[in-house]
């Protein structure tokens, strides 16, 4: 019957198909997952090595803020060989058991100690740092011709006078959450975990409601009332680009938007209320190796020969406006450029804690900020209850 003939033909074709089923990755290739939008710079930076060694480097854009889904994909064998992530994921990545220690690969002398502490967990290094990014203060030069404020008093008086004269809606355009508000939190004496020589392993002491913060908490309420912070908490960036706000907290990712709006701005460090500089969180972008990688030798070779090089760090950071983590690459950045200004401020910033307890910290901390912004609680009360709940959740009390 015609059907049977066709059936046999189908069988033959299928057998041919299955016979040619090659394994998923051909020998001589590695797969690297990078942040969305950055494939081009990674491909360009790997091209020379790839041509020299004949190893195909597959760059795929699959990562974002978190851990690229590695905690589930890695053990299942569906992960890449290398992937990029922000250093604050180090603790949870190590605890999930999905990354390999790179202590024998990292050249410690190439990176500043703050950067190294970001990727250090349990006395071992787990990632190769590439870039350092932090937020900084952007001043709208059309509204504030005098330039960036050197003291907090200057910032406060400029903002309030502009608001009262109706020229501005709000003083500083920013998200009202832990990450963005950290410099102000820090300047009134609050902290998350004690930073001892760059390591945050002491999670028994939570500083969300430290003595110093309790004393100064009312200042935050005053500033909210004076509209220095926007209590609608919507981060309406257009307030800044339309000239309705003199200051904004921006990261390297915002620069493209500011340039597109044609703004004249200046990047500077954030002044602290007690004089000096308030310390924001710095984030280190690092390349991690999947414990269940299919091409461990080649991936290691790529790390040693490409990712650790100053040229690589420089190339990647040039494309996304962040500051190189590699000391040699950083020394060639022009201090007056945007990246240079971010980096200069970043040098005094503290790295985000990389312990996995940070997940719970963000929950309670951000909720406290939301309660304070919506007017449900005063700053001191919100932080006190967050501190209590966090201590309970961490098992400290």
């Amino acid at each position: 019957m015609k059907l049977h003939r066709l059936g046999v033909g189908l069988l033959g074709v299928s057998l041919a198909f299955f016979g040619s089923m090659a394994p998923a990755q051909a020998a001589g290739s590695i797969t690297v997952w990078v942040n969305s939008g950055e494939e081009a710079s990674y491909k360009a930076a790997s091209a020379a090595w790839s041509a020299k060694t004949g190893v195909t480097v597959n760059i795929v854009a699959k990562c974002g803020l978190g851990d690229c889904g590695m905690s589930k994909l890695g053990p299942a064998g569906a992960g890449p060989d290398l992937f990029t992530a922000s250093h604050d994921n180090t603790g949870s990545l190590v605890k999930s058991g999905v990354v390999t220690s790179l202590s024998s690969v990292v050249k410690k002398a190439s990176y500043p100690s703050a950067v190294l502490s970001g990727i250090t967990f349990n006395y071992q290094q787990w990632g190769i740092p590439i870039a350092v990014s932090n937020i900084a203060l952007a001043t709208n030069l059309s509204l504030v011709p005098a330039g960036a404020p050197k003291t907090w008093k200057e910032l406060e008086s400029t903002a309030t006078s502009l608001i009262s004269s109706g020229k501005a809606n709000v003083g500083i355009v920013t998200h009202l959450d832990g990450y963005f508000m950290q410099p102000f939190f820090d300047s009134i004496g609050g902290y998350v975990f004690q930073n001892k020589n760059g390591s945050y392993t002491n999670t028994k002491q939570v500083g969300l409601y430290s003595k110093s913060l309790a004393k100064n908490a009312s200042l935050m309420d005053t500033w909210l009332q004076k509209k220095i912070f926007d209590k609608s908490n919507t981060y309406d960036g257009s307030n800044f680009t339309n000239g309705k706000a003199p200051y904004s907290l921006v990261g390297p990712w915002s620069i493209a938007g500011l340039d597109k709006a044609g703004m004249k701005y200046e990047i500077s460090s954030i002044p602290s209320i007690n004089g000096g500089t308030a310390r924001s969180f710095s984030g280190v972008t690092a390349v991690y190796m999947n414990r269940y990688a299919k091409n461990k030798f080649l991936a290691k070779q790529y790390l040693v020969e490409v990712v650790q090089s100053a040229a690589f760090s420089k190339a990647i950071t040039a494309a996304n406006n962040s500051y190189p983590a590699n000391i040699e690459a950083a020394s060639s950045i022009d201090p007056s450029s945007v990246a240079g200004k971010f980096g200069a401020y970043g040098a005094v910033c503290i790295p985000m804690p990389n312990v996995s307890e940070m997940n719970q910290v963000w929950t309670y901390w951000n909720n406290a900020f939301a309660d304070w912004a919506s007017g449900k609680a005063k700053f001191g009360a919100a932080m006190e209850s967050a501190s209590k709940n966090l201590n309970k959740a961490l098992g400290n009390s």
Partner: protein
Amino acid sequence: MNIKAVSKGSKYLFAFGFILILLVMGTKLYQDKAWFLAIFFYVSAALIFYTYSISKSTPAKYLLPGVLLLTLFHIYPAFYSGAVAFTNDSNGHQLTKDQAIAAIVQDSKIPIATQEPVKYQTLIEEGSKKVFVLFKYESENYWLSDGNAIRSVSPDPRSVLVDGTVVKVGGFTILSPDQTQAQIAVLQNLVINLDSGISFQPQDLETLEVSQPAFMYNEAKDELINTLSGESYEPNDNGQMVSKSGEVLYPGWKANIGWRNFSSIITDKEIRRPLLAVLVWTFANAFLLVLISFLMGLVLALIFNFPALRSKRFYRTIFIIPMAIPSVLSLLVWSGLFTAETGVIDRLFHISIPWLTHPWWARVAVLIVELWITFPYMFLITTGAIQAIPGEILEAAAIDGASPAKSFTQIKLPLVVRTVAPLLVASVAMALNNFGAIYLLTGGGPTFSNSNGNAGATDILISYTYKLAFNSQEGNNYGLASALSILNFLIVGLISIYGLKKMKTMEGIN
């Protein structure tokens, strides 16, 4: 060309191409060790081939695609979720026990510095074709191991070169550098352990990394021993290694924890407290939505029934718009409109309501938007129901002297309700799981400040479950989320069954 032949030929082509795709997918799944799905695809291909090659028409030809899709997208995920609900699947518990122990041991390696790098050679055992590694370390003899067994060998001095390379070992083939390259997959994962505890691992194609892991695993006793501190760790019932003093080692593994996920819903205060509030709001939201939207739709349908109303087409078009716009878009726009103070709603009415940041106002906002999206549907079905009422009944009622109000409550309303009752039951079932409206509008609403799983004032059970599973800040607790989704299924199922049963009694109204 003969149309019949072309259509028949293309039909065959399409059918066989489809079956081929199923077989290819099945093989890929088989390679990825997804057993059930692989078998499912093979069986589907066979069933499709068999069913559609029969020339006469059978019910199976109509039922088969639906049954296959039902199995794949409903029955399989339901049972899979059920299986996951009995495990502690979450962040830090994704590995198998062997993987977890291997990871702990590997991470505890203390590197041993050697004067010169330890070189190795790759061999293949002639009978079994297994890959072996030959190297020399602190002894005159060579070590030969495939990662499992290790033995000491002393090759014939005449087959050893000056630099220590061996050129001949009895029963083995020594590989050249190119042949070694082909064995990369095996070499990468090889770990060789001496009885003294020293561990060797190939770090490239020629040299071994020498280290001493601080942890040693005693498989017989199922315990990990820290050789530096002497502490011993045994598995607990949550897929982790713990010491007697309570120190927990990471990573853990996926373990079967029985009914603990289900019981924790009742016993764990951190889960029970927000869950109760979420459940109450889930029911309230669903019932209020269906009730109010039904009434709105009914009123509009009755108004439309007046023959005197002009420009009906215009009104009808406006009323259909909320249903016509993709709800994802309209929800995102609405969440912008509801912004406090600077949003359109607050500015338009000169009010200052903190819509999305105050728990009760957020609930009102959610209901308003859900009503806006649902009332056109209710309007349509009630219009249809009203128009389906035979005109003679209404005339008879009018002749009998019934007032318009009586005619409405005694005749129209019962008939309409009887007609749309199944749709209302379905609407309640859908409203209980109205994930999009909640998640896109408020993300679950202003969060309860004391909730562990980030539950909020407008969270319904399904959005709370989603956040537990996919909000990595909460530890991706897939196990608990699966248990909650089973609970969700039971709730929705029971309410639907009850509703349908109640409908049957309504059939008596005539």
